[in-house]
């Protein structure tokens, strides 16, 4: 569990890197913290691991207060730091063993756990090589394995897949999804919006240290982009000017071969709408909900924050 209240950090140079961040992530949930470079993601994560003392506000992680019980927090949190931070002269298995020891695992547990993680991330063969020889993606996977060594109940992942190839990021996504189903509390900082959309059930957008938007993904789409739209596609150009719209449906936009509708209550309105189109003998090839990406939510929110117009 992670709960923050008005969490804020001002650096020595009087610069507020994080301001008034209030979040709540429950076990079994994944929160994606989205934001530009320098928005304050890493600073937030560091406060949650008690590395930086909050200037204002409070945070509880895994049931402990960051200012009062830093050691307990570090014991229960797994962090993938922004830089992998590997000791490059150590081999993969030595490295995991070392961190296993730091977290107080006994020899047997360390051996089992490190073998499992190395194999899972496809590092089994490279385990005895120095990590300095690894590729960037392999290094990042080893760092992720490190953060999972002690089976933490809270995971903070700062840009976990930024250097990985598609296969590897897929592996990492699957592992994260698996961890969610075993009731871990997870925060992922990223600017990979597709990944955030695939994994996260909650989204927080941070801009210049402040949270602009925070909530469940579907709810945010509704809130930012408005009601869901439906689209009818036609085989050829088709004149829809004679269409009699059922109550509760309005045309959002139209082109020669398609028509988009804004509909408040699709369960009630859609059957009538499809019947109306059919009765016009429209060459209908599909009728579907217009997919809406997190990207749109993000870009629109950011554009508004910067006072710019958002072109959909």
């Amino acid at each position: 569990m992670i709960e923050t209240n008005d969490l804020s950090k001002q650096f020595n140079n009087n610069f507020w890197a994080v301001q008034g961040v209030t979040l709540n992530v429950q076990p079994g949930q994944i929160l994606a913290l989205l934001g530009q470079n320098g928005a304050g993601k890493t600073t937030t994560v560091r406060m949650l691991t008690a590395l930086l003392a909050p200037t204002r506000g409070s945070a509880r992680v895994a049931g402990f207060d960051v200012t009062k019980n830093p050691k307990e927090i570090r014991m229960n949190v797994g962090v993938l730091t922004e830089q992998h931070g590997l000791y490059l002269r150590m081999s993969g298995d030595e490295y995991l063993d070392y961190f296993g020891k730091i977290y107080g695992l006994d020899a047997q547990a360390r051996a089992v756990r490190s073998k499992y993680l190395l194999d899972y991330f496809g590092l089994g063969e490279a385990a005895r090589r120095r990590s300095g020889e690894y590729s960037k993606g392999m290094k990042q996977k080893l760092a992720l394995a490190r953060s999972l060594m002690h089976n933490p109940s809270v995971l903070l992942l700062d840009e976990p897949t930024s250097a990985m190839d598609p296969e590897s990021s897929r592996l990492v996504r699957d592992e994260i999804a698996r961890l969610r189903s075993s009731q871990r509390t997870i925060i992922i900082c990223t600017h990979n919006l597709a990944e955030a959309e695939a994994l996260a059930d909650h989204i927080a957008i941070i801009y210049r240290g402040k949270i602009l938007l925070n909530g469940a993904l579907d709810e945010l789409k509704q809130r930012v982009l408005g009601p869901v739209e439906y689209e009818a596609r036609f085989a050829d150009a088709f004149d829809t000017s004679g269409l009699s719209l059922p109550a509760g449906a309005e045309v959002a936009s139209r082109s020669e071969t398609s028509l988009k509708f804004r509909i408040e209550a699709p369960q009630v309105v859609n059957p009538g709408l499809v019947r109306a189109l059919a009765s016009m003998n429209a060459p209908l090839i599909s009728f579907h909900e217009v997919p809406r990406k997190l990207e749109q939510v993000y870009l629109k929110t950011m554009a508004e924050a910067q006072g710019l117009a958002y072109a959909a």
Partner: protein
Amino acid sequence: MRRNWDAIWMVARREFIDQFRDWRIVAPMVLLMALFPFVADDTTQDSIQFMGRFGGELILERLVPFVILVIGFFPLSFTLVVALESFVGEKERGTIEPILSSPLDDHQIYLGKLLVGITTPLVFSFFSITIYLILITRRDVAFPSPYLLALVLLLTFAHAVLMVSSAIVISVQATTVRAANLLASFVVVPVAFLLQGETALIFWGNESVLWYAIVGVTLLSALIVRLGVSHFRREYLLGREIDTFNLKQMGRVFIGRFVGNAESIRDWYAFELPETLKQLKKPLALVTLLGVAAIVASYLWVVVNVPAFLDISPEITDRIKTLVNENLTDFEDLSTQMPVPVLFYHNARAVVIMLLLGIVSFGTLGVTLFLVNMGLVGGVLGGASLLGVSPWLLFAAGILPHGIFELSAVFLSVSATLKAGALLVTPQQDKSLGELLLVALADWFRVFIGVALPLLAVAAVVEVFVTPQLLKMVVPYF
């Protein structure tokens, strides 16, 4: 407790192994450390022969402990990089954050680094020393006694602890590895001076005097470790600033502290300076106590011990007295020989040196120098008493008139030095070590400029114009 040690050992072990994996560092190091004893052995042999040709008697037996000390010191200064980069290197490479995010305690991380920082140089030091010891068995010279050998090895150990503990403080505070390496000379040079002092002890003193050096150096290291642990903050090691040496900011902190809230000089003397002086009560009491003790101890030592060395027959005392009397007539031209500004400059410089020594040693070396000076005063008085001159009379006429001003200035400055040292080793939540140093210096300069310098100026005038007259008046009564 056990777990604590395990954790410290774990941190140290990893790093120790890590270092020895890089043969590009290890190989030249081993070579250097192995060659140096040969060079040292040859050089000593040559210098003994050289001295012998001119009738000098340099005895190898006397030289051996000194050479061991130097051979031990040499690898220390080379491998100091290990300690210097221990924190800042990991910070630069980004490997520190996973460690800082782990449940290791601050002191476990710190002491682990300290341990490896000490072990690495010592491995090389003792390696070099061992080779040298093997070499001298071939020479026609008695092997140093186990006792002396143990002392010298202990001293080398103490040097390692001293240098490494300072280097680690630098490593935590430095923003880049480069900056840390530039600061290395602040560690190496003072210890090199210390080594010279210890050499003097070996040559002229009883070997057991080395115990003082060992205990002194160890205490100093303990203070430094304490300073380091109490100023260790995980936050610093995540800082972003690179080599920023912000003179303007530093100047603001210093001047802000020095001036305080004063609007005018009068204001400053009336409110700000007394505030600082008030805080000197305890250190002043301590310094006075120590100073008086040093005078008395040295006086007694001279009175008790010197007659055993010197044969002070009445003729000799008379001869010395005559000599002194003749020379005292020169007092007239004292003001030309030693003009007031020069005397003033000398005294002020001595006080600043005490500060500088004090700053690098949390006040202790500054106080030591002070005690040596007080000891000299006691010694002179003791000598006078042996010659049959009343030490009270000499004190009242020859020292007190200007001493009232001079000693007050010195006592106050030394107290301020001690206070500055104490401030540095006390944990402070809100100030970085750099800021703290500036604050300590500002406080010291308040005392120095506000009180000590004016007093020293008065003292110089009195010493040149008044003291000689008084002495001349009382000399007939000697």
